[in-house]
């Protein structure tokens, strides 16, 4: 039996067990997200996909849809909350977009554009972070990691390598690499691993291709993410 819930006044069908996010995606409706990727178990940590379901604030990627549920998604209030979350992500890391190879095909940027963020506006942390270029084919720029945990899930659940994990607490939370030296070059990480394809930002970057696609001609340079979707779906291009 097909059941339905209401998303911004529209009737959306769902199957038993589907989350709000999954049902919305099947119906072709965009709910902004960073740590969600349909290929992996939802993590529910970035909170960008927060919606109001029957008046309660919930992450749409982890909340199952239920019959007759009333969900708000694209409201001024929720977009405002999302914008502030994104602003906090920007000031917590070091995001110098004009100098970033991922610029134009970065989901953090794209979701920020979608919510109408013009500037981060908060006080910058300017944390001291490093770049790991020890691997021959892939570099990690920790300045841009947003702790979405997608590389962790991809390496653990698909590559079966467990190369990444998230360590520490609060503002000291950080991504670590599972090798004695902590360097990516000392793991069996491979550029063809799933974990090399899922980073939504410019933290895990393949080397030697930098600006093959010029700035201005990239995925989100012309069309919003609500139209073209996640960067992970376009990696092969």
């Amino acid at each position, binding site marked *: 039996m097909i059941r339905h819930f209401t998303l911004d006044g529209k009737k959306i069908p769902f199957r038993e067990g589907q989350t709000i996010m999954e049902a919305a995606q099947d119906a072709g409706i965009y709910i902004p997200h960073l740590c969600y990727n349909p290929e992996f178990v939802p993590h529910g940590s970035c909170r960008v996909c927060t919606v109001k379901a029957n008046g309660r604030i919930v992450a749409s990627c982890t909340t199952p849809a239920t019959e007759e549920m009333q969900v708000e998604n694209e409201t001024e209030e929720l977009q405002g909350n999302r914008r502030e979350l994104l602003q906090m992500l*920007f000031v917590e890391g*070091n*995001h*110098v*977009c*004009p*100098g*970033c190879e991922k*610029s*134009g095909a970065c989901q953090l*940027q794209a979701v*920020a*554009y979608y919510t109408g963020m*013009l*500037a*981060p*506006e908060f*006080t*910058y942390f*300017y944390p*001291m*972070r490093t770049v790991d270029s020890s691997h021959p084919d892939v570099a990690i720029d920790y*300045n841009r990691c947003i702790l979405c945990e997608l590389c962790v899930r991809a390496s653990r659940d698909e590559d079966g390598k467990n190369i990444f994990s998230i360590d520490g607490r609060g503002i000291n939370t950080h991504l670590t690499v599972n090798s004695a030296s902590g360097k990516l070059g000392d793991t069996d990480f491979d550029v063809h691993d799933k974990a090399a394809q899922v980073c939504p930002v410019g933290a895990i970057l393949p080397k030697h291709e930098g600006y093959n696609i010029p*700035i201005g001609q990239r995925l989100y*340079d*012309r*069309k*919003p993410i609500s139209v073209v979707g996640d960067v992970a779906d376009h990696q092969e291009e």
Partner: protein
Amino acid sequence: MSGKVKVATTSLAGCFGCHMSFLDIDERLIALSELVEFDRTPITDIKEVGPCDIGLIEGGVCNAENVEVLKEFRRNCRILVAMGACAINGGIPAMRNSFDLKECLEESYVHGVGVEDPQIPSDTEIPLLLNKVHPIHEVVKIDYFLPGCPPPADTIWTFFEQLLNNQPVEFTYRQIHYD
């Protein structure tokens, strides 16, 4: 009173790229000059900012003089605008924030390629560097932000057009980017 809107602009820790983009509005500059009168800007070469309606700031703050100029602009401008990535988040100059100031100075003036008579400049004429480069909203209140490195000429034009016509400032998707 001329009835024209008074505009001042300056570049702090920027590269003048935003100003170049401003000039890129091309022949629309003529239309703009019918509506506005320029006070202190690199275009008029006026050195002191007077009372203005709109102040455009390019660049973040990296030294004591930047802070002084920025505060002077805030005192004089009714509407203050952060123009471009550096004003908004420190931009490329803020990449030095990953290092100690001392390390940066030594890299350039002591260990730099081809440096003779290595010494860190300390002339009193040179404004003192801040430990970190900061976006301007951390120093004064900012009324509008124009992202981009630089913001496209079209974005700057749209901003003026809407503001001068008392319309809410709104941009199209293509007018907003952070790079």
